[in-house]
Structures are given as C-alpha cells and as structure tokens.
C-alpha cells in the first residue's frame, strides 16, 4: 500500500474513533461512519478499528460480516436494491433482477459492475408492498417497476455520469 493512502486512511479512522471516544461499544456506529465515508469497509480499516477500540480483529470481522448493511467489497456509486419480498416476488421481481444484471453487465456472481458505477442487491422486503415490484437506487424508491422502466432509469443515470465526467474534464 502506498504510504500516502495509508496515512490518509489512518487519519480517517482516527477521526471517526475520536468522534466515538474510542468506546468499544460504539463499534457498529464506527463501522457505519466508515462505510458512509468509503462506501465499503476495507480490511485494513477494520484492523485499525480493532486496535483503536481494543477488540480483536476477528471480532470486528465477525460484526462486519454479520450485518447486511456492511460491505467488505467496494460498492458502486449507485446501489440498486431489488425487493424480493413475497409481494414483489409474485409481481415479477425475478425478471426485474435478471434484467438489471444484464443491463449493468454483472459477471461471474459479482454484485458490482466493472465500471464501479452500479451494485445490485436483493432485500427481503422494503416495506412498500403496495408498489410491488419495488426497487431502490441509493435513497430513492421506484414503484411498479418493469425491466423496460428500470432500463430507462439506468440510461438516465449513465447519461448524467457521462455529462459530469465531461464537465470535470473540461474544467480541468
């Protein structure tokens, strides 16, 4: 690992640990803050958290892998959650899921697209059964989804990305 990246990571962890007063019982809030910052929990960060809180790295790993909210793999900029609860399932969440996987070109069981833009997950229920089938992209809920509709939404998102990339490039 590059020294600069390591120091940056160390500073981020130190800042978050200080915010929680290095209290071992704050492990979950600490991991949540870390995940908010980095969109995932790198192994090195988890080890630093363990040393900082005085708990074993194995215990931290256990907690980080227990909760579905934490990811040890880098997540895409857009996290797409397809509801596969009973209502959504009978209203066609499976074809929806297949369509998205195909659209963002997920390969060999991976959950995140090669360009790092999209992560696709299923959840047991989003609690919006009346809108079944439901998808969530980051914090936004999309009801009564179809493969066609989701493709349009994803097209829009990709277009936005290209546009912002272009702005960045011209600005620099």
């Amino acid at each position, binding site marked *: 690992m590059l020294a600069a990246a390591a120091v940056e990571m160390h500073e981020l962890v130190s800042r978050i640990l200080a915010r929680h007063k290095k209290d071992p019982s704050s492990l979950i809030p600490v991991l949540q803050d870390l995940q908010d910052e980095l969109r995932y929990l790198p192994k090195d960060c988890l080890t630093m958290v363990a040393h900082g809180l005085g708990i*074993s790295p194995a215990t931290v790993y256990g907690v980080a892998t227990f909760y579905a909210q934490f990811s040890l793999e880098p997540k895409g900029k857009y996290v797409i959650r397809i509801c596969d609860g009973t209502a959504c399932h009978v209203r066609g969440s499976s074809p929806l899921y297949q369509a998205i996987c195909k659209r963002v070109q997920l390969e060999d069981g991976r959950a995140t697209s090669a360009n790092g833009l999209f992560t696709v997950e299923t959840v047991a229920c989003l609690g919006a059964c009346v809108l079944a089938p439901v998808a969530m992209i980051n914090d936004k809920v999309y009801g009564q989804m179809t493969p066609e509709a989701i493709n349009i939404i994803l097209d829009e998102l990709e277009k936005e990305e290209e546009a912002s990339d272009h702005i960045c490039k011209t600005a620099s």
Partner: protein
Amino acid sequence: MSWVAVNNQRVELNGEESILAVVRKAGVDLPTLCYHPELSVYGGCRLCLVEVKGRGVVAACHTPPEEGMRIHTNTDQLRFLRKMALELILAGHERECTSCSRSGTCRLQELAERFRVDKPRFQRQAPAQAVDDSGPALIRDPKKCVLCGECVRVCAEWQGIGALSFSKRGARMSVSTAFDLPISETSCVNCGQCAAVCPTGALVVKAQMDAVWQALADPEKIVCFQIAPAVRVAIGEEFGLAPGHSTTGRLAAALRRLGADRVFDTSLAADLTVLEETAEFLERVEAGERLPLFTSCCPAWVKYAEQSYPEYLDNLSSCRSPQQMLGSLVKRYYRTELGVQPDQIVMVSVMPCTAKKFEAQRPEFATAGIRDVDFVITTQELAQMIREHGLEYTALPEEPLDEPFAVPTGAGIIFGVTGGVSEAVLRRAYEVLAAEPAHEVEFTEVRGFEGLRSCELTIGDRVIRLGVVNGLANAAELLREIQAGTVHYDLVEVMACPGGCVGGAGQPISRGDSAVRRRRGVGLYLGDGQQKVRRAQENPAVAAIYERWLGAPGSSEAHTALHTVYSHREGHRSEADAVCVRNDTVRTTA
C-alpha cells in the same frame, strides 16, 4: 430451604445459578454441547432443553431455578426436540467418524449414539470451507465445526486474545479468524485451549507421531526423549489410571520399548532453569531494575508478550524454557561425549503443551539448520503411540531414566503446576537473600489454582512481592495494573493454561473438569514430597552439568547455551498500520 422438583423428585436449591446445575445435582446428566463450566453461557446448542410447568420448554443452561419449579427432563416433546436439534447439528458436520482423530472422545458422536440419531435427514447447505493447517500446533477443519463457540469463548475469555470469532450469519455462519486468514498469520499463541474444549474434531492438535516413528526406525539416529513434568501425572488417564497418578518409571519403560535410545527428564532442565532464573532475579533485585521479572517457561505467554507487550520484553527472563535448555545441552555437549554429529541425534519432547511445538520451531533455537528439539509430541500423542505399539501401559515395569538428565529435584517437578516455578525459585532465592537455608522447603503461599494470585514474603531484610497468573487474560489484567502503577511486583509467573501445564491442551481430554487438573497438580506436589532432594541447587546432577559444561549459573557459557532474546512480533496488524508505524519511527528518529 427452597426446592424444585426434577422429574417429580424434590431437590433442594443451594445457590445453583442454572436449572442445568440443579438437574445434574439430581443425578440426571442433561446433554450439552456448547456449555462449559468455566466459560460464559452461550445457550446455542439447545440440547439441554427441559420442560418447566407453566413456562414450557426452556434451555436449562441459562435459566435460573426458581422456588417450587416443576422440571421435567425426558418427555415426549423433549425427546422429539432434542433429536431434531441433534439432527440439525449433524447436518453441518462431516461425518467421517472412523478416520477422525477425535473418534471415541467426540461429544457429538457420543450424543448421536446416546439419542439414537441413526438416520440424520438433513444435508449441509453452505459450501464447505477448507482445512487450515498453516500453524505449527493446530489444525482447523470447519467441516466438522458445530458452531458451539467454545473455542471462540476460551480464546477471548481465558486468553484474552480472540483469534477466532463467529463470522457471517445464517447457514453461512462459521467460526473464523479475522478476514479468514490462515491461523499462522493471526495473533494465535498456539496454546491449543480451543482444541481442548472443542467437542468435535474441528480443532485438533497437529501431530508429529509419524515423524517420530520414522526417526525411531532409523538405525543411524540416536533418538533421545525428554518428558515434561506434567506428562507423568496425566498420561495414566489414557489407560484407566486416576488423574495425578505419577508414572515416570513406566514412561521410561514404554519409550524404550518404542525404540528410544535415551529417556531424559525435562524436570532436570527445570532445575537448571531455577538456578539461571534465580541468578537473573537476584541480580535485578540487587540493582533494582527491570522488575518485575516475568518467567519465560510458557511459550504461549512469550509469544503473547512479544506481540502485545513489547515494552515489557526487557522484563522477561532471558532463560530458555526447560524444553529448550535440555535440547541445547544434548545437542551442544552431550552429543560430543557420545562422539556423534548433531544431525545424528534426534531430540523428541513429550509435552502437555501444543505451544511447545511452536517454540521448538523458533529460528533462534537451531544451529546451522539443526533444531535443538526436533519433534514435540503431546501426552495424547504418546498415549496413541503406546496403543499403536500394543503396549499394556499399566503392566509395564518402573525403569530409571538415563543419566546425566535422570533425577530431578522436587523443585523441577512442580514446574508443571501453576505457582510451581515461583516456589522453585523461592527455594533457591531464600537461601541467598536470607543468607541461610530456609527451615521449610515449601512455600505454600504461592500455591493454589485461582487465575490471579499474589503474596508478599519477607526474606532477610527484604520484602519480595510475587504475582502468580494462569490464563493470559489474567496476565493482561495484571499488566494493566502494573502499567497503572496500582500494584508492584518483583517476580511474576505466567502460565497460559488453566492450572499451569497440568491443564495444557496436549493432556488427555478432561472436558473442562477443573478437578482433574487439580488432581494432576496434587500428583506433582506429591512427587515433589517424595524426592530426596527438593531444592534445585542441591541437585548433584545439576552441579555436575555446570562443572562439566557450563561453569557457574549466569556464566557466559551458560548464557550462550541456556538463554535467549525476544523481539517484538506483529500479532495481527494492518498493512496501513505498519506503514504508519514505520513513518512514525522515521519521524522520531529524524
């Protein structure tokens, strides 16, 4: 007097914390898999279910008894539930019992038989994980794990390390190291207590029996064995003798029948340790520096100190452990008397300990690629070899061990029990500090089986403060107090295993029965009492070793042969941490 009814039988309550304890007091052996009397209660296996009138089915291990409770332990419903729970546990368990080293001592096997689970209906759901045999002492096979969590708890609660934890959830849940790293890359200290509490073969000791058989069969090799103190009072359990029954002479007889050329006593090397360590101790007391002196006989403790308390490495006694002292003496001096090359001698230790396997492999204990101790087998492994050979252990005669490492003093024998090293050192130190021999040989102040003990002794015009610890979590607590300045000690003895080496993970399986460990300890104290010479400094064999080879305790020759150095080692640390530590060092030195 309050009472409960167990299967319509009145049982008086006497402060029991759980229904399980009450039921067992009533003479009913409720099945358990995840319960361990010396660890926290987990309540995960659901085998100790009982029916309580008005409350329904509860787990006995974590339900406190209440006045007037009517408890039933063997109803139709309970039999159904228990069998179902067992079937579900068996679903995730690789059932290759005949080729499993725990066959015959496996608690799951015993329960499956007891509750007649003849046709387990369920199959494993999650993909099986690979076997991890990366470490020097332990092998982990997740396919045999039943998720009882005893290993997780003993590592965290008793040793304060937490090298193992539950990870993931549901059908994918497993016991794993941090990030599923190989065990050799974690902060595991190889104490093996996880294997000692494991009810199945998911955690077993890495055996070296085949290598030893090979050496024994090689006519070019002179195979020397050494027997640790705690082995003699435990190996008999494998052959129906009571715990604590000492069988040193039979061990010698058995080893010779297996093909050993020499059989030595590690206790005699322990006598040497006493002299070297006391010399070191008195020097530090005189100078008033690097106190407390920490003992260094326990290799699990040494590794723990190296990775977790590098700031105290200067305080650690530089003495090698008795195992390594004897190995060094044999390969350095004894072999020259035999007129053979170092690689013609094979040194095999019989130890109660799994961490000794790690210790023997430390690079500093080898010269030109030849190890001072070639192989380490546990008490259990030797018992296995004796069975394999077909010897009837209890019928063997008592034979003497081989000179010049044959007859130890009582001081060397009690090294195998917590407090023993301290007492052995006191028997020597008293004489020097008080400038007269002690009236009593025994220092019973340091005896006992509690995890953390301390005492003060006035010797001559000095007060010597001792701390005696078993369990690394207790050691960590003591170190925190020392760091905080709330306690002060001159000498601290640390043993990682419960009760000291008598409770080592290489010993016959005792299922967390603390009484067994105590009886082994008592056996060692009995052996001490029966020895003609009980102070290390009075051992004529030890005096002869110094005269022939080493000079005096603390001499430079003794230092080369019997002492070692320690260095800070990484337990489990992130790469980024390491980079930052390096940067810090650069900054501070610049």
